[in-house]
């Protein structure tokens, strides 16, 4: 009986822990899975098609990189109870605050366009016209936020996050070469052809899709809107870690798909990959298209919220999903304005949509150090953070990330002006 009661006690304790985690889980998983947005899926499929399994190790390395950056926003949001935009204004003044806010607005608008590009391209595979996709997306995105509760929005968003894992069964369905996947995952290597401009561009696009400024603003504001306290921080970190693991797994799944079925083919976007999958395996093609739509949708709802929260924090509007439209009119007005503006660009005839998608990732990663530096400064302020300040290891890791991104962006800038430096 003693053993039975011990087992029962342990079982109840584990259940309670899981239930507690599920209550706190949300911002970390959503931001990380939404990170595999339409631009991200496009980047991963292009990476797999052009460079086979050779760069999976690079994607795996980006997982902890994303975790160390996003974990800081959990601590900052839980301790200060302020969103990131408000935290910058409060701590560094209005000059730096406006700079950060305008950066965010510009990048978010560009990234939102790529989300709509992904959604319309995915649905066009099923014969749905872009205009119909855009309108239906607007309606669903609007309905999600208008019910007046953050928790409801979060749970629906988590469902879409679950759908984002569709690449995993798709990758398993095609019997990929496990030995090549393991080799590409654990042995750092350059693809045949070495270090070229094209490779450099894709590496940067991969970094840009893994960590982006909107993620910092989104997660911190979501932590505040959810009402997370300092005592919840451990769960918030676990939530973020689980999210970063899922990010890497989905990214690897996308790479495996195109590396196995479309090796050596010039794929510039995920929709083209899905279209080319159809004659080979129409179920895999359909799964990739559904996943691409989901990725764009998830990215769009998170990015538009990140901007709306940021503006609301700074302008002092009511800015919570727990408010109804009448209580927070400007918050919802900005949210819908963002969606409308981005969706409309996609409907412009002959717009260079694929090029826009890839370049936006690269521009996002280039501007990321500006946001990261403020985040690190905030996390090192003893008055603000107290015992939750960055440790030496966290500072080394995050400053290392900032330096790495600046170096890589510089090298890409040089290669853009002098293309022959890296062999063109």
């Amino acid at each position, binding site marked *: 009986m003693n053993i039975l009661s011990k087992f029962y006690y342990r079982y109840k304790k584990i259940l309670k822990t899981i239930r507690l985690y599920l209550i706190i889980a949300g911002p970390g998983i959503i931001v990380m899975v939404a990170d595999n947005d339409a631009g991200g899926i496009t980047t991963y499929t292009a990476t797999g098609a052009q460079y086979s399994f050779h760069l999976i190790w690079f994607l795996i390395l980006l997982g902890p990189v994303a975790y160390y950056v996003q974990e800081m926003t959990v601590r900052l949001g839980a301790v200060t109870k302020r969103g990131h935009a408000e935290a910058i204004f*409060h*701590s*560094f003044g209005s000059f730096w605050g406006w700079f950060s806010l305008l950066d965010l607005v510009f990048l978010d608008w560009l990234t939102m366009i790529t989300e709509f590009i992904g959604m319309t391209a995915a649905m066009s595979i099923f014969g749905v016209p872009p205009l119909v996709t855009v309108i239906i997306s607007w309606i669903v995105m609007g309905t999600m936020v208008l019910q007046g509760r953050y928790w409801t929005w979060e749970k629906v968003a988590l469902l879409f996050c679950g759908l984002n894992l569709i690449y995993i069964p798709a990758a398993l369905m095609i019997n990929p070469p496990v030995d090549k996947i393991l080799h590409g995952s654990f042995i750092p290597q350059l693809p045949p052809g070495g270090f070229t401009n094209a490779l450099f561009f894709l590496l940067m696009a991969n970094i840009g899709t893994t960590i982006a400024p909107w993620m910092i603003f989104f997660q911190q504001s979501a932590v505040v809107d959810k009402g997370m306290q300092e005592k919840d921080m451990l769960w918030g970190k676990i939530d973020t870690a689980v999210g970063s693991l899922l990010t890497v797994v989905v990214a690897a799944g996308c790479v495996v798909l195109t590396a196995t079925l479309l090796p050596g083919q010039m794929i510039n976007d995920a929709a083209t990959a899905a279209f080319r999958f159809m004659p080979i395996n129409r179920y895999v093609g359909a799964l990739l298209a559904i996943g691409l739509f989901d990725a764009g949708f998830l990215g769009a709802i998170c990015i538009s919220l990140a901007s709306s929260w940021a503006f609301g924090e700074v302008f002092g509007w009511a800015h919570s999903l727990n408010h109804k439209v009448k209580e927070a009119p400007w918050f919802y007005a900005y949210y819908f304005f963002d969606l409308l503006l981005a969706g409309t660009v996609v409907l412009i005839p002959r717009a260079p949509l694929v*090029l826009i998608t890839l370049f936006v990732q690269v*521009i996002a990663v*280039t501007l990321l150090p500006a946001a990261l530096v403020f985040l690190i400064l905030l996390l090192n*302020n003893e*008055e603000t953070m107290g015992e939750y300040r960055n440790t030496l290891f966290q500072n080394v890791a995050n400053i290392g990330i900032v330096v790495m991104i600046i170096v890589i962006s510089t090298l890409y*800038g040089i290669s853009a002006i002098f293309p022959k430096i890296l062999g063109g």
Partner: protein
Amino acid sequence: MILDFFRNTAGAVRAINQKYAKPHIEMTGGVRFSLGALRFYLLLLVGIMVYKFITLLH
């Protein structure tokens, strides 16, 4: 109506600037200069990428 909107927005911006006029984290001149230089440098890099984007378009 549009003029009223811009006037109200300008007023809101002025109020925000007043509210956050004094930063809570004191930065030395060196830190401020470094942040400004970093920002300028990153925008320069973005400019180069936009140039590359335009050349690829043509």
